[in-house]
Every structure is written in structure tokens, then in C-alpha cells.
């Protein structure tokens, strides 16, 4: 690879897991935990992406992506450096939103929600997982109930109405991770959402 093909080579190659096996096991445990307990925040660290992506989102990508998962980078995070970084560390192909297994970006940049795959009744798992970047952890504005939640949990959601529609598609629909700095939370399609509360 010649220098002209890559924008800033150091950015692309650095920031991977120091100990890939251990770090991805930790990353996977965090991802599984937050998905199993919707509304719970957990810290997730280990990877550093080029500018524009939080540490939690970067770690999530390195943990979950491989050459067989298509990744969609929304406009607000998409950059040549990030594309190079993702390709070097995971080998994941970059695909349009409609074909994505994983989609990364801010909420507004990822919309509309119905452009992502929701699976089909034979294979509900063939759906997209969204990694939604939140600039900050805001005060909760929605109440969550459902599997994995003892009574109810509270979480800030960027657009409760759209996510309620997503939950109504169950067992189809998309699953979401919310990342902010070094923290991650999740909202699987099985969770029922009540606005405010």
C-alpha cells in the first residue's frame, strides 16, 4: 500500500486491542450484559478509533465485526480514516444501510429507522444492529419493561415513538446499542417502551 492511498496511516493502524483475545472477550461480555439488561449502562473500553467515534462504539465494532458482517457508517461518523481503521482491524466490508448487519452513527444521521433490515419470520436474526452514538448521557425520558428488566428501567431514548414502532414488529425489528464516551447501554427489540413515566 502506498502512502497516497491512505490519508493518515498512523491513525488507521493504531488503536486496536492490545491483547485481542482478552479484550474482545471483555467487550463481548459487556455487550451481552447490556443487551440482557436493557437500560443498564456499563463501561466498555479497549479500542481507540480515529476521531469521530467514541471509545465504547470503537470497542463494540472491534468485538462484533469481522469479514462476514457488513457495516454501514452514517454520514456524521464516516471518514476515510475510520473506513481504513475498520478495514485494517476487522476486515468488515462497508455496505449501504439497507444491507447492513451493523450501522454506526448519531441518531439523526441513521434515520429513517425503516431503511434497516428487520429480518424475516423464518430468520428474525437477519436484522441490523444499530450502534447509536449519543453526544452525552442525558436524563432518562422513557420507561422500559420486558424481558431482562425486573420491574422497570429508565433510559434516555432519542425518539421513543420510532422505537415503540420498532418494538411492535417483534419478533422482527432492529436491536440498538447506545454509546456515549466509554459507556454503553442497549435496547433490544423485545423491550416495551413507555414515554416519560
Amino acid at each position, binding site marked *: *500500500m*502506498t*502512502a*497516497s492511498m491512505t490519508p493518515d*496511516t*498512523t491513525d488507521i*493502524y*493504531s488503536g*486496536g486491542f*492490545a*491483547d*485481542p483475545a482478552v479484550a474482545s472477550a471483555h467487550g463481548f461480555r459487556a455487550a451481552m450484559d447490556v443487551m440482557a439488561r436493557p437500560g443498564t449502562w456499563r463501561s466498555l473500553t479497549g479500542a481507540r478509533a480515529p476521531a469521530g467515534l467514541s471509545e465504547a462504539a470503537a470497542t463494540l465494532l472491534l468485538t462484533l465485526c469481522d469479514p462476514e458482517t457488513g457495516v454501514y457508517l452514517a454520514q456524521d461518523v464516516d471518514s476515510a480514516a475510520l473506513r481504513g481503521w475498520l478495514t*485494517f*482491524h476487522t476486515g468488515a466490508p462497508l455496505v449501504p444501510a439497507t444491507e447492513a448487519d451493523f450501522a454506526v452513527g448519531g441518531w439523526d444521521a441513521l434515520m429513517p429507522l425503516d431503511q434497516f433490515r428487520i429480518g424475516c419470520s423464518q430468520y428474525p436474526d437477519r436484522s441490523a444492529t444499530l450502534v447509536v452514538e449519543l453526544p452525552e448521557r442525558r436524563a432518562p425520558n422513557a420507561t422500559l419493561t420486558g424481558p431482562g428488566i425486573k420491574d422497570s428501567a429508565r433510559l434516555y431514548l432519542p425518539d421513543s415513538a420510532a422505537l415503540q414502532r420498532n418494538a411492535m414488529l417483534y419478533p422482527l425489528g432492529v436491536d440498538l446499542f447506545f454509546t456515549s464516551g466509554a459507556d454503553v447501554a442497549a435496547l433490544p427489540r423485545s423491550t416495551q417502551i413507555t414515554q416519560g413515566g
Partner: protein
Amino acid sequence: MTQEISPHRRKGWMSLLASADAARLETLFARLDAPPAHEWLRVPETGGVMVRGRTGGTGAPFNLGEMTVTRCTLKIAGGTVGHGYVQGRNKRQAELAAKLDAMLQTDAAEQVEERILSPLRTERAARKDARAAKAAATKVDFFTMVRGED
């Protein structure tokens, strides 16, 4: 610090380092004046790759078979990044290959070329010739005598 290098040249030395004998590479590496320190970007990892070929170099691609490859990426002092892809599971060889790849992109290139690449190149050519000569010795020429046909 990284000067423009033609992909063709780089391909040449990557190939040479990938197929070099690990012990020989280690011996040659010891002849370098001051091998730089490095920092890992991707620690050596071993995996399988599917080798594909094209008949005559132009036909439809076909899978030739899987082979074991060890790869790593590192950054040497000065910031130059080097990649090492070698056949087999020798992690040290991958490390040396990556380090030499990085050095070949810096001012140390001449020294590496002279003390490591050219001996390796000569040896590889000699191996190839010896094998070709051995094969040539077994060549049988068929010819037909004039048959007594009317």
C-alpha cells in the same frame, strides 16, 4: 519520512520475506547495524488463507487450497509502519518481515537491500535453478524412427 515506493517493488520484497527460511532470515538480520525498536499495532496472529489462482493468469479464478499464514503489523521508531505476512506459523519471522518492510521504507533501505534482500534473492534463484536442473535431467525426448511403410 515515508517516501513513495512502487507497489511492484514492495510486492517483490514482501514475497521474498514471506518465503524466506526463518533461521536464515534471523542470521541475516543479526548483520544489520542498528535494528530499530518497535511498537505493535497488530500482534502476530496465525490463520488460514485461501490461495486462489487463475489459469494462465487470465482465466476464471479457482481455489488452489488453504495455507497457513502468520501476519503482524508494527511501527518502528520514526513512525513508519511495516506489515509482515509470512507462510507458516513462525511469529518471529513475521516480526522480522514487518520490521524489514518498515525499514525498507526509510533511509535504512539501502543497508537492508544489500545485507538481507540480495543474499535472499540469490539463494532463492539458486534453489529455483537447482530444482529446474533436477527436473530437466529427467526429461525424456520421444522420437519415431522411420517406419518401414511402403
